[in-house]
């Protein structure tokens, strides 16, 4: 059975290492903070100007001056630090963030990522995604392997406008875990009950075993 959103988030949480500074994108990546393994302490960066992002506030304690990059009300932690947007992206661009875990619309076997724009549809903007994939040390994407019509979103090359070229290190989907390596995508892991043939049938990229 393919992994659901929470299983994907739990699997992505296994990527975290103790002491890391991590930026989590909007969507499934947001759920990862619910699955951080015991004994692993990570500091979450929010690119609007915060390190040490805490959970949602309890009712009545929301603060309009304290939001995350998804504009949701959040809380601070004992180690929290605030800074301006230029400083925030200086630490991103400067390679100080250990990992970014982002959503994706398409990903290619060369590690190209498309997650910000569908031509002809509503265009909202790239926000900080292009900066994150260009600057963060390790980029992991978490996504459904296929779209609602069953078409693969893991491709030889992306069809949508790119967020970054050759930027993705690891892909976690509902069907398994793939690494971007020379010559294609290395199969690292299959989701529970998913066979290699099922994975291959759902993938347009070259797979290496």
């Amino acid at each position, binding site marked *: 059975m393919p992994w659901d959103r929470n299983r994907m988030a739990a699997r992505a949480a296994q990527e975290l290492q103790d002491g890391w500074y991590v930026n989590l994108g909007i969507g499934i990546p947001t759920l990862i903070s619910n699955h951080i393994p015991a004994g692993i302490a990570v500091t979450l960066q*929010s*690119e*609007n*100007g*915060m390190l040490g992002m805490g*959970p*949602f*506030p*309890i*009712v009545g*304690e*929301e*603060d*309009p*001056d*304290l*939001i*995350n990059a*998804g*504009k*949701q*009300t*959040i809380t*601070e932690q004992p180690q929290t630090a*605030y*800074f*301006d*947007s*230029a*400083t*925030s*992206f*200086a630490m*991103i*661009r400067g390679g100080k963030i250990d990992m970014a875990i982002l959503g994706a619309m398409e990903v290619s076997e060369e590690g*190209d990522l498309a997650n910000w724009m569908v031509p002809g549809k*509503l*265009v*909202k*903007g*790239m*926000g*900080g*995604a*292009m*900066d994150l994939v*260009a*600057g963060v040390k390790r980029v992991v994407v978490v996504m459904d392997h296929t779209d609602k019509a069953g078409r693969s979103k893991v491709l030889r090359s992306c069809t949508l*406008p*790119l*967020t*970054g*070229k*050759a930027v993705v290190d690891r892909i976690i989907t509902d069907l398994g875990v793939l690494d971007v390596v020379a010559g294609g995508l290395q199969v690292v892991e299959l989701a529970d009950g998913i066979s290699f043939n099922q994975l291959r049938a759902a993938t347009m990229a070259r797979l290496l075993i």
Partner: protein
Amino acid sequence: MKKTYPDADAAVDGLLFDGMTIAAGGFGLCGIPELLIEALRRSGAKSLTVASNNCGVDGFGLGVLLNTRQISRMISSYVGENAEFMRQYLAGELELEFNPQGTLAERMRAGGAGIPGFYTATGVGTVVAEGKEHKEFNGRVHILENSIVADLSIVKAWKADPSGNLVFRKTARNFNVPAATCGKVCVAEVEEIVPLGSLDPDHIHLPGIYVNRIVSGVHEKRIEQLTVRPKELA
């Protein structure tokens, strides 16, 4: 010279003209200069180019200047929360330049720091890089981005002293610092103007040299997405 002004209209008086470029602080609706935006609306200044990470929502923040058709061009990283923005953009009434968020912040910071342009790897291989100079540093391709110097900066801080020293609160600092520095003139609105000497000089977030005019007032501080958790899990 006195930097404090009695209200937002007085604080922008004499600074506005049609076709000007304005850098605005804020992220979403957090830390936006809502009083100065209203003063801009009342002034009727038009054909504005506005550099701001977002463009408010329908009827609040920079969204009010869309309703009055005062903005002709936006430089932003994300404009997803505004139906009127989309309508004007798709109708060809509004020009839009998308910048990656960090590139926009750095264009403002650089503009305020006397740096006319900089190279960044952000956006290489994407539509953002089209038409821009490419140059390799240490084996990696970068693109040249020009800095932004605005005719006017409008920002929002938590507290100011009469000399213009500013202190921000939590994530409401965001774009307010780089936006403030990149303006030829900067007007700051605050929740409170405190007496000279009452801010710790070690804890000033933006020195008063960057701030020409200050106004205080009551802020609505609207929340864009209220997210909470139940009390029993606290």
